[in-house]
């Protein structure tokens, strides 16, 4: 008996030992494959610091076994269910890390309760995302079954103690107006097994751009981290386009064309040692975009997006700018002194040293803080916390969460989680208040004066402006004040003239001054532990600006204002020096020159491309002759004041040799007007990385009225008129003839077209993409392709308009709606057409026609399975209709039309 027991005991012991060896071996191998096959990945980040694999494994299994007994029954966050065949999971984990990125077959439970075929793969390069039982996933839908026009979504495992800070960070970015992914928190089931809390985030691709009101342009991903790091190459992302890859491609260039990124990096480098290049960089990486991004980083106290990691940029050739997109950017908070200015990467490192950039950023920051954007945001997000708590209680992967993220067990239990959140929100509040306090503080400055000079030393985060110098004597004869830029102690060519006011014994210097942001310098010994010269933290150093007057000054007192709040205070008089202003730290003045109007001469021969930054007037009768290939670009208000007798004429200088573009671009152009402007013989141009693909280009204009335009004979480029990223554009009483391809191309814009004739278009009469337009009382004739093409999520309203002899009268596609009233369709080869062309819009087109006339030998009205056409109360000969299944012709009432138009409408004499 005893012997029998001993045998069993021995066998049991032996089996346990073998199991232990097997499990341990498997765990070690898994760790080896996940963390050690890639030379740039260390295992420490996968398994906790102590690294006892067996202990972690045991705790995980115990939790998964006992967890369901103590979980809450109430559902928390929205549930999403994915079904991944075992075979797919096995293949994905078969040979990590090689195998994790292979798409595998899976299913998702859709809203209708049925299973939809999708593809899945593990998400992320860091093994934290996929090396453990609970993984981050990427899910791809079929092209024709998009959900809210999104094809790929990511389900990301929480990696922060608060569980929600990643989601909050990205949502805050979106709230303040950055181009950022949509995120939400969900409870994810895989194969009916609850995997608990996940952050669901939209994937960056072309759909993302389109869904966020952007043209499909180059969208770059820059990563030199983990498995994505390239071997034997300098990993500075901002120094090599090869280290980036496209997640969306601008379709007018080849996929392998990285020239836009290349010229951007050239500019970033040059800007650090050249003022002119810095000015060019400002036009490409606009302060308004990067200052908002940098302000967001300060609010979130998150400095991701460095020179190696987490960089996403959109390069839009229609705007000519580079836009940063935040990624992996959690909302961080602590009770530490918050950082206000930090240069996470090459570009932000330069920008945060510029007084002009800092002022733009600090204004945005203070505005957001004063509006309590964060407070309101947190308040609204807090409502979701009870749901998060429920989901967290049903999540049986807490052990994995704790050991893989080095989080102690505080967050394990519900009450501790509540405390963690309470603490987190207190920290956010603290950070918010501290930032505001720093920006609103009284000026930190001092001064001293000697003979004709006054030295102003500025410190602190906040700027100092309106330096009020109280003199002992009156100074009515003061003529000039200069900032001694070159430091030679006398007024010289390099120095900067500063505007000022004299009021009695007071001289008020109308400038704004910042303290230097000096890149934290290193003692050579500290160049370790990840520190290197590319680090972008700054020291704010008291900085001295020496002002030179044209006469002796005897100063009694100096007062100054906080440049952001305007609070005035007296500043101290001492002889303490500051450091010299750094390259980009210059005093800021209001630049009046940019608002002074200029008038073009009545006869102008343009020999080279000219850019006008100032407002421009063009007088009646002006004739502008353009040399081959040259362009005119107006970046401020433009008034073209032609009249019927004396129109303004823009034409080629050498007959038969096309010139470039007549372009108006940017927000400053708001309120521009073109009257009686006649243009012919132009083409298009590439000016400073901006593509102007038409003879008359209207880019990012927020209000433009045009009447009595006459345009004809454009060449080479796609469009005669291209309106893009614009609003409130009005075209009236105008005529367009013989365009090379499309006549009026409208992308992501709003426009109103009235009393317009468009004849003989080489392609479409009017071509729309994601735009809203109204066309009234117009005639579109002889277009080789469509009269009006309503595409890619556009809305168009066509009233009292004649569409005659076009290839297709009106076409609606890709989620667009065209409504037509009181119009005529005469002799178009196809009168109406609706279909799905681009899968990214998941729907076809809709056309609703009311009270209109159809006249043709054969009225072809076609619609595909994804689209609909309704013709209501219109005149159409029933015997001459050829229609497809999704076309409905309702109540065909003859002779009740309210408008039949002027069928004899003829083109007026042109040129």
């Amino acid at each position, binding site marked *: 008996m005893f012997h029998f027991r001993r045998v069993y005991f*021995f066998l049991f012991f032996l089996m346990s*030992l073998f199991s*232990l*060896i097997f499990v341990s071996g498997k*765990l*070690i191998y898994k760790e*080896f494959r996940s963390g050690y*096959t*890639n*030379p740039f990945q260390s*295992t*420490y980040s996968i398994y906790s610091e*102590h*690294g006892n*694999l067996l*202990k972690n494994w045991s705790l995980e299994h115990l939790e998964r076994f006992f967890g369901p007994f103590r979980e809450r029954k109430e559902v928390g966050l929205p549930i999403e269910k994915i079904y991944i065949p075992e075979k797919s999971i096995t293949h994905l984990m078969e*040979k990590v890390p*090689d195998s994790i990125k292979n798409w595998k077959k899976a299913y998702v439970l859709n809203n209708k309760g049925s299973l939809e075929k999708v593809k899945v793969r593990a998400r992320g390069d860091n093994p934290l995302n996929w090396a453990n039982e609970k993984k981050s996933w990427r899910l791809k839908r079929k092209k024709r079954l998009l959900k809210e026009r999104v094809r790929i979504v990511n389900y990301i495992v929480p990696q922060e103690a608060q569980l929600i800070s990643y989601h909050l960070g990205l949502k805050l970015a979106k709230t303040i107006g950055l181009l950022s992914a949509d995120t939400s928190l969900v409870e994810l089931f895989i194969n009916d097994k609850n995997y608990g809390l996940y952050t669901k985030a939209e994937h960056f691709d072309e759909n993302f751009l389109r869904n966020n009101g952007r043209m499909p342009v180059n969208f770059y991903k820059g990563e030199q981290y983990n*498995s994505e790091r*390239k*071997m*034997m*190459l*300098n*990993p*500075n992302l901002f*120094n*090599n*386009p*090869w280290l980036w890859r496209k997640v969306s491609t601008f379709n007018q260039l080849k996929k392998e064309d990285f020239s836009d990124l*290349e010229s951007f990096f*050239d500019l970033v*480098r040059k800007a650090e*040692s*050249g003022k002119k290049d810095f000015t060019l960089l400002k036009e490409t990486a606009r302060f308004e975009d990067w200052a908002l991004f940098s302000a967001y980083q300060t609010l979130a106290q998150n400095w991701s997006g460095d020179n190696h990691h987490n960089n996403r940029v959109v390069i839009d050739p229609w705007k000519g700018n580079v836009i940063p997109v935040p990624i992996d950017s959690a909302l961080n908070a602590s009770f530490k002194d918050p950082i206000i200015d930090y240069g996470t990467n*090459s570009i932000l490192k330069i920008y945060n040293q510029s007084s002009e950039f800092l002022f733009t950023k600090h204004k945005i920051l203070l505005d957001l803080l004063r509006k309590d954007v964060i407070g309101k945001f947190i308040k609204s997000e807090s409502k979701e916390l009870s749901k998060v708590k429920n989901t967290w209680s049903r999540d049986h992967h807490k052990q994995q969460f704790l050991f893989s993220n080095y989080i102690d067990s505080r967050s394990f239990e519900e009450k501790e989680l509540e405390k963690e959140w309470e603490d987190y929100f207190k920290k956010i509040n603290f950070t918010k208040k501290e930032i505001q306090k720093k920006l609103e503080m009284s000026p930190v400055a001092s001064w001293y004066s000697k003979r004709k000079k006054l*030295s102003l030393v500025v410190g602190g985060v906040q700027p100092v402006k309106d330096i009020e110098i109280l003199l002992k004597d009156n100074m009515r004869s003061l003529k000039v004040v200069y900032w*001694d830029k070159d*430091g030679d*102690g006398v007024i010289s060519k390099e120095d900067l003239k500063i505007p000022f006011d004299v009021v009695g014994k007071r001289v008020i210097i109308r400038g704004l001054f910042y303290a*230097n942001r*000096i*890149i*934290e*310098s*290193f003692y*050579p010994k500290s*160049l370790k532990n990840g520190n*290197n*010269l*590319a680090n972008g933290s700054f020291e704010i*150093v008291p900085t*001295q*600006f*020496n002002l030179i007057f044209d006469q002796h000054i005897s100063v009694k007192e100096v007062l100054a204002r906080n440049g952001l709040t305007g609070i005035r205070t007296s500043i101290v008089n001492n002889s303490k020096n*500051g*450091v*010299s202003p*750094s*390259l980009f730290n210059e005093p800021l003045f209001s630049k009046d020159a940019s608002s002074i109007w200029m008038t073009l001469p009545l006869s102008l021969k343009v020999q080279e491309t000219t850019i006008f930054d100032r407002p421009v007037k063009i007088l009646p009768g002006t004739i502008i002759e353009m040399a081959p290939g040259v362009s005119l670009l107006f970046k401020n208000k433009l008034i073209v004041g032609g009249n019927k007798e004396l129109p303004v004429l823009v034409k080629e200088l050498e007959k038969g040799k096309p010139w470039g573009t007549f372009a108006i671009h940017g927000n400053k152009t708001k309120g521009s007007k073109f009257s009686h402007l006649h243009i012919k013989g132009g083409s298009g141009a590439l000016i400073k990385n901006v593509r102007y693909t038409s003879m008359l280009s209207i880019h990012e204009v927020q209000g433009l009225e045009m009447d009595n335009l006459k345009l004809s004979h454009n060449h080479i480029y796609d469009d005669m008129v291209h309106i893009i990223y614009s609003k409130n554009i009005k075209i009236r009483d105008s005529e367009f003839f013989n365009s090379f391809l499309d006549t009026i191309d409208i992308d992501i814009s709003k426009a109103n077209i009235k009393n317009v004739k468009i004849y003989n278009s080489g392609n479409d009469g009017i071509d729309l993409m994601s735009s809203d337009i109204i066309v009234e009382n117009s005639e579109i004739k002889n277009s080789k392709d469509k009269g009006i093409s309503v595409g890619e999520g556009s809305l168009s309203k066509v009233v009292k308009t004649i569409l005659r002899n076009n290839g297709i009268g009106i076409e609606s596609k890709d989620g667009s709606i065209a409504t037509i009233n009181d119009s005529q369709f005469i002799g178009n080869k196809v009168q109406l057409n609706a279909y799905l062309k681009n899968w990214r819009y998941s729907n076809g087109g809709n056309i609703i026609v009311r009270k209109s006339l159809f006249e043709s030998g054969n009225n072809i009205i076609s619609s595909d399975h994804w689209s609909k056409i309704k013709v209501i109360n219109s005149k159409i000969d029933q015997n001459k209709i050829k229609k497809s299944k999704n076309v409905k012709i309702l109540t065909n009432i003859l002779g009740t039309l309210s408008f039949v138009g002027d069928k004899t409408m003829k083109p007026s004499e042109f040129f």
Partner: protein
Amino acid sequence: MAKKALIFVIILIMSSPIFLAVNSSVRRSLYFLVTKVVPKSFFITNVKRNLIHRDFDAVNVWLSRYLAMTKSFSKGNNTLLPGLIDVAEFAIKRVRFNGEMESLLPFLSEMVKNWPELVESRVWLARSLGSLRPKEALKNLKIAEEISSVDERIYREAINISLKNGLGHEVEKWCAKYKSSQLGGPHNFHYDTIFEGTGLRDLALEIINEQGVSKVFPNSGLQLNETRDYSFSTDRLVLVNNLKLHLGIVPGVKVSLKEMRFFQAGKLKKVFAIKDLLLSSSHGFLSSPGTILSVDRNPETVRIFTKEKEKIGVDKVIMKIRFEKLPMTNAAGC
């Protein structure tokens, strides 16, 4: 009983490495390190053995075996790859004749096929193809140039191949590209320089004060073929004893220091023309006063001493410098 105990002990001894590793990440790291070190040691020994007799055919066989092992380990970059590159580089550095390089062609073709983004393997492959298939060689160098346009090895090889094969127009094209290309740059897998890698972008000024304490101030605005002012702002007033200009640049660059200006509290304190300065170089050579030629892949350091006896306090230094690449050939257009 004794037999069972013996079995038990044997199992325990055999499995002890697993138990020792499973509960300590440090021990596991040591085990894993072996997977990197052992193959490299093994293959370099065998490569060296054959290099003694300059048997490059045998070297090719050993390198190909190492490559096969690396490839089977994991796709793309993996922990065995740096070892493979090191061993290959060791062998290729010993090549002197075309025939020897051609012996390595099978290995190098496989290397490029499996790791197409490695500049080194593209350059080596081009070298081995130089006489056999020059067009293919140049095609590989074109890709290498797209990957890291600043790498002078690419142009050196391209110019040599073009000259050798009488492709005059190619020589001109490569020379033009070489003179102005600035993007990218190499990085040694085994260590970071103070700029991480090298290239043609970074410089830094180290200011050493009277006490010998130094601080480093970076600037990443290096521009070729232009005389520019490079500005270095400090965080406080420093009494300068001497200066070191660190240059994270590739070999073959002529650095001409023209002038140096010292600022203090917004005032220009001193302008040093090149005649007022003494320069010495860490790796390079001075070709004329103020002109240094870089020769090393590691950052060049130029020590700068002023002839002033009195120490000057500075908070901003502006250096007027011109960077230019030296020609690689005296062929027309270069």
